[in-house]
């Protein structure tokens, strides 16, 4: 049966090519658009750990909260918090602010976070390792920058200085942390708060004894009348923060992908009609020797899918070759486009769908070929 199908393809190479090109373009577009949201998600969740908890003032967003120093100090006495090497609880008082940088080359304005932290940061982020220089010293105007900073912006080489409200802060260390690709700058929390005239922490981060201890920890937090704080798992906080962006990116990707797939499917229908028409005689012969319409429908559908699949591979491959690793900053976030095997799988599924849908009508026509007239026809 398939042999008959493929002979039709050979007779109409341009029709087969049309399906290939259409599917390639649709899958390529879908995969490269999805690569933005995959890159975003990898960036967001790359360093999330299940035992990390973020505290903020009740009703306020993590990172934009105002936690007074006395309340923050009381957090140290809560149960279920893991102890660091020196025996003190792994709690990081943070004061985050965004300052603007100019992207290398393009000069695009992108904001990056400067986070004042306490010296428990190394225990909180065990996968943070220095690739150059050293950690900042408390009390000095020193900064540590992730390697992404130097890749994205100017002014982050070791020894470079940055003016913050008239005071020069120097970059003394560069680090990598897990899979994180965004620029983060750390400094001493008291120095940062003084520089930005703040009295409160914007959030407090801590590591639990174990991820299962979260409910007990939250109960202890709620039971303490001196603390008016909310605790959320880091994974939840991150998901909340990026929900809108992720939804938008995914929507755009699927919208563009579906529209192009619709176009490609219409093209495939036309091409398959042409292929079916070009072998009416063969189809009639097959019917004449006893095959029912069922096998003909199935064979045509399989053929349509077989024609669509190479397009999926080609499309995913093109998306990978053109866009993988490309840095984009949609809406001010810095994201590296990531084409993963999962996305290629999505592209293949998409192509299967296009092949199936595009094959239905032509398959029905193939099955309805009137045996006698088709056999008599000259063509």
């Amino acid at each position, binding site marked *: 049966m398939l042999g008959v199908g493929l002979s039709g393809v050979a007779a109409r190479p341009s029709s087969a090519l049309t399906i290939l090109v259409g599917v390639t373009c649709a899958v390529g577009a879908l995969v490269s658009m999805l690569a933005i949201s995959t890159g975003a998600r990898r960036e967001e969740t790359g360093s999330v750990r299940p035992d990390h908890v973020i505290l903020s003032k009740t009703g306020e967003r993590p990172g934009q909260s105002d936690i007074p120093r006395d309340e923050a100090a009381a957090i140290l006495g809560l149960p279920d918090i893991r102890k660091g090497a020196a025996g003190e609880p792994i709690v990081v008082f943070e004061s985050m602010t965004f300052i603007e940088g100019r992207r290398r080359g393009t000069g*695009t304005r992108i904001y990056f976070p400067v986070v004042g932290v306490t010296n428990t940061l190394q225990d909180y982020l065990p996968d943070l390792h220095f690739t150059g220089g050293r950690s900042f010293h408390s009390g000095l105007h020193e900064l540590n920058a992730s390697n992404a900073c130097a890749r994205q912006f100017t002014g982050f080489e070791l020894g470079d200085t940055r003016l913050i409200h008239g005071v020069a802060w120097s970059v003394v260390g560069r680090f990598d942390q897990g899979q994180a690709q965004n620029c983060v700058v750390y400094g001493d929390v008291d120095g940062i708060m003084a520089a930005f005239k703040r009295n409160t922490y914007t959030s407090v981060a801590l590591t639990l004894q174990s991820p299962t201890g979260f409910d007990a920890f939250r109960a202890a937090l709620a039971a303490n009348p001196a603390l008016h704080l909310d605790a959320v798992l880091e994974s939840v906080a991150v998901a909340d923060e990026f929900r809108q962006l992720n939804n938008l990116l995914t929507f755009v990707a699927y919208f563009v992908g579906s529209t192009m797939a619709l176009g490609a499917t219409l093209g495939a229908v036309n091409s398959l009609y042409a292929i079916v028409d070009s072998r009416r005689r063969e189809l009639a012969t097959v019917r004449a020797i006893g095959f029912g319409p069922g096998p003909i429908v199935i064979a045509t559908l399989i053929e349509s899918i077989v024609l669509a699949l190479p397009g999926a591979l080609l499309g995913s491959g093109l998306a990978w070759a053109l866009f993988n690793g490309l840095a984009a900053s949609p*809406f001010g976030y810095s994201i590296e486009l990531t084409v993963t095997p999962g996305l290629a799988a999505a592209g293949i599924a998409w192509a299967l769908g296009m092949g199936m849908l595009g094959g239905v009508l032509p398959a029905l026509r193939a099955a309805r070929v009137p045996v006698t007239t088709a056999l008599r026809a000259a063509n």
Partner: protein
Amino acid sequence: MRREFLNGFTLKFIPLVWSGIWRRPARSVLIFLQVSVAFSLFGLLQGLKTGVDELVAQTRADVLVVHGSLALFDPLPLSLLEQIRAIPGVKVAIPVELSGAVYQNPAQKLGIVAVRPDEGWLSAFTFTLSPGSEAAFRRLRTAAIVRDGVARKYGWKTGDHIPLQLETPQQDGSTTWTFDVVGTYADSDLNGGSDNVLINYDYFDAARVADKGMVKHYKVEVTEPSLAVAVTDQIDHRFANSGNETTTESMRALAQAQLQSIGDLNFLIRSVVGAVLVALLFSTATMMMQSTRERMPELGVMKTIGFSDAAIFLCILAEAVTIFLAAAACGLGLSVFAFPLAAHIVPGLSMPPVVVASGLAVAVAAAAISAAVPAAHAARSNIVAALAAG
């Protein structure tokens, strides 16, 4: 003479083109749909890109924003005001402070914009105030002018006392502030924010407990638009190496920076639009090729009864252009219709007519490209061979 020829041409050819289109209705309908889909996507993507460029071009270049050098929301002290006003070329400088607020429940968020309504302040903004509200705003310390949409949303009228929960606490620690609505305003600035309330800076600063004497930025209007760049440099130079370094940008530069985040995806948008057109051209060219091949005998007959090669060529071209134009118009119409949905991420964005025009031009070009080869083939074909092809 020429007119006669054209009339004759049209009379003779319209039915021919029409019957050519409906020779295989299913195929024509499929091509029509495919072209519609491609051009609705073209309209949306290109509209987004061009619309953003047009919005940026519409923002004022003669109004500057002076803010702290670290970020757009890096505050500055009010003490810089007189120094900024003293700089030559500065016509008006108005301090602006921002805060967040909620009305009744946390889901009903508002932006608080505290300004000092000094002489000529309105020219540094893009606001249109309801009649009488400006005088009342200057007279009453607790006055509030509400963005028209917000007033409608919450049913606020002039004379209402509105209690708002601000992020900024008052002297007594309370975060409840009550303002008196004195009017409404409209804003043509796309970054203006739609849920804003204007209040008096002097009242706000006197009543709050922290950050006294600070502003988020100054709005500066220059005397001559051509002076904008010079004034920008002078302001930043004036405060360079001080504890209050400033960054001065025009409203247009700000809009550009803000929208560049979308522009950053230009490469991707171009690639997608390119892929759409390539796939479309490939598909339609194949269809046209096949269509002419099937019709060879008919075209042979036409030639036999005296149709010239050029007439055959034009006839096939006209068929393609007709289908493409109709389908592109349909697809672009769809994208104009759907544009407000896609554009809600960029407030104030509208579909630029130039996109529709260029879409139609692209459609004609695409039709010509996909039909040129088969049409030339048909025109060149030998009568005998064409008749025999059946």
